[in-house]
């Protein structure tokens, strides 16, 4: 059973982390494509039409990988976490079914037409289809985040006499305050990823001296949206997220911060290495009293340390949780600084000449992916040792009839398959970027071959 738990956790962690690399771009990029298409519809300028088609092709590649890596996620609830499914299916079955019924049907019906069907649909309907896909992807995000929010902060349920959870109130479950906060935080982060990728491609073309008009557009949209989203992801959404963790999972907050001993006027650790055995943080660089203020609004508020909680409720991997949180927060701060700088240069009309800054913008696109991954690791490692917070432990949830060897087999299968998928994905997107946003006709066909 130990083996099954270990490999099942690793398999879920690996497949969900890999999967989420793709939806975060499509959710962020979707609205940027909608914007290009809207400008195209209004102005009729091919600058916008080509921009929309170029990004729609990249969107399509991402979407395809997102779909095929997403289906295994839903199935793993039943295959690997059968006891969890049995225990909570009355509740989370609702949102997983809703995700399919409301969101996936919408997205899947329209995606083919969005990527390949501009001519079949005509400009207005094609615009509508693009809006539909964008809506569908955000809706899907909401349902899955509600599912996760129930695991983080269960509401709207009762414990049945049959030993499983029963749904009491759908509205309470769907309007879980945790889901609301995490949705805003997560969607802003997806827009950060989308806008940084758009800006990076703009910077690349500018540095190469190619597609100057498109490059200027991408830089402009990428940096404006990037600044707004980077700010929103920190404040108010990130701030609210931290407060809700402080309120409902105080032990998680303590572990995220490497805060071992309860006290007042607690410092906010910026850098340092947690030594869990000796309950201290090595080489700490910190801001005095700041954690008290951020968590509870007063510089002298008392913040519980890990020592205030029984050890069997501590997150199981405190060091990794601590680093995940600090990497996310540190990168988030850098995003804001970089985007402020880029926007200042752009307002001064100097961005296209600032080659150093363009290099940074071009090379920075992986970091939003790292930040969102670290953010999700914070949420999920922070939830441990529970599958459903304070109700159901991770060790209780695994399938009893599946042995560890079978899980290792499928985990290795996924590793190989996803490696191949990753190589193909990079090749395909690389080709699109190398080709550039020129001369893509309404059917997606290329009329003229450039350079």
């Amino acid at each position, binding site marked *: 059973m130990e083996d099954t738990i270990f490999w099942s956790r690793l398999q879920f962690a690996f497949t969900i982390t890999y999967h989420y690399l793709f939806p975060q771009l499509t959710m962020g990029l979707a609205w940027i494509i909608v914007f290009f298409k809207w400008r195209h519809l209004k102005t009729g300028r091919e600058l916008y039409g080509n921009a929309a088609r170029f990004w729609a092709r990249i969107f399509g590649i991402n979407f395809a990988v997102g*779909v*095929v890596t997403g289906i295994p996620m839903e*199935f793993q609830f039943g295959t690997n976490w059968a006891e969890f499914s*049995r225990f909570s*299916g009355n*509740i989370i079955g609702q949102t997983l079914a*809703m995700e399919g019924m409301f969101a996936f049907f919408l997205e899947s019906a329209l995606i083919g037409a969005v990527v390949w069907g501009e001519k079949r649909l005509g400009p207005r309907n094609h615009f509508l289809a693009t809006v539909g896909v964008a809506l569908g992807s955000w809706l899907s995000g909401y349902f899955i985040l509600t599912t996760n929010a129930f695991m983080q902060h269960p509401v709207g349920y009762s414990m049945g006499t049959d030993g499983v959870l029963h749904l009491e109130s759908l509205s309470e479950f769907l309007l879980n305050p945790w889901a609301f906060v995490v949705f805003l935080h997560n969607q802003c982060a997806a827009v950060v990823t989308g806008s940084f990728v758009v800006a990076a491609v703009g910077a690349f073309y500018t540095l190469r001296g190619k597609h100057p008009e498109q490059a200027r557009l991408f830089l402009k949209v990428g940096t404006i949206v990037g600044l707004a989203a980077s700010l929103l992801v920190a404040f108010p959404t990130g701030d609210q997220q931290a407060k809700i963790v402080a309120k409902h999972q105080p032990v998680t907050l303590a572990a995220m911060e490497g805060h071992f001993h309860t006290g007042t006027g607690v410092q906010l650790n910026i850098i340092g290495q947690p030594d869990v055995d000796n309950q201290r943080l090595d080489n700490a660089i910190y801001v005095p009293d700041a954690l008290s203020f951020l968590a509870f609004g007063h510089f002298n508020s008392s913040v519980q340390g890990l020592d205030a909680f029984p050890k069997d409720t501590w997150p199981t991997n405190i060091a990794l949780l601590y680093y995940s949180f600090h990497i996310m927060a540190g990168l988030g701060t850098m995003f804001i600084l970089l985007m402020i700088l880029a926007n200042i240069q752009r307002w001064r009309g100097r961005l296209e000449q600032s080659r150093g800054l363009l290099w940074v913008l071009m090379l920075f696109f992986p970091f939003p992916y790292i930040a969102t991954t670290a953010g999700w690791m914070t949420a999920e490692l922070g939830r441990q040792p529970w599958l459903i917070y304070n109700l159901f432990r991770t060790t209780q949830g695994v399938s009893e*009839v599946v042995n560890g060897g079978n899980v290792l087999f*499928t985990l290795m299968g996924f590793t190989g398959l996803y490696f191949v998928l990753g190589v193909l994905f990079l090749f395909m997107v690389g*080709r699109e970027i190398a080709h550039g946003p020129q001369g893509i006709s309404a059917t997606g066909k290329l009329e003229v071959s450039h350079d």
Partner: protein
Amino acid sequence: MIEIWYAIVAFMLVMFVVLDGMDLGAGMLQPLVGKTEAERRLVIAAIGPLWSWHEVWLVSFGGTLFAAFPNILAVSFSGFYLALFLLLWGLVGRGISIEFGGHVKDPLWRTGWNFAFVGSNILLAILIGAALGNVVRGVPLDASGKFAMAFFTNFSPFGNVGILDWFTVSVAVFTLVTFAAHGANALVLKTEGPVRERSLRLGKLLWKAVIVLLVIVTVETWQVRPELFSGMKHHPLAWLGLVLVFGGLLAVFTGLSGQREARAMLGSCMFIAGLMIAGASAVFPIMLHSTLAPEHSLSAYQNAAAGKGLAIALVWWPVALIGSVVYSLFIYKHYSGKVKPLEDTQSPY
């Protein structure tokens, strides 16, 4: 209430098998009906912009099963562990070969992806068939209400049951051929020229094979699960299913010989849906039959979601279904009629 949810879950599975069976079948026939690369791309264009929507019926079936019968999902998904992952990997192969194969205009790239495409279609059809076979035959549920099964056994009619055994493999072969025949009808409807001619010829042949296999599988099922046939007497819906099966076959044969494409297409949808409706009605209320002892079987009545969940879901589910149909009609409207090679084949460079 529980009857309604049983019907909804069955409906979603029927929709998936009918719609995606068409795509899988057409995909399998790609090398046989498409002799040039342009013709092979035409097959993919005929599967069209909605293959992903078809696949979502499986995902939504899974979600709906989860909401309505969580324990059935938990028991069957963990019990069919390896087979389900093969199915998932097959879906990855199919989806990626459709989406990536079209992007690059290079003969080697195309050949590779066509191969992956056909291979994953065949794998998926076999696995879906085997899964249906397992549900029909039953699984070794014990007193704990769970089962774990070997992926395959020695294939002897007297040996232990496996996910793949003599019975489920023959159901899988039947499914494979039926999907191919169903896909041929779709290609006749959606294409013109040589692809259509070849699909028509193949279709006529395949449908004859379907009849032969139908007889064989029916006799085998009689051996494996006799109460399925006695159960039909008490379920009027099973009779409706049988009417659909025979009416569908009639429509297919008259449609194909009389060049009435739409009738043949409708007929093959009726045939597949009819078989599944008959099966689902005959086994009701047993959702998972135990091969070890009938009292270990899992019934819809004991395994439906408890509490208010089912009543609540009955409010939102129809709304979502209407939405889904509206989106697909919006797309069907734009893509009605024959595939247009210039507009509908993906544009590589």
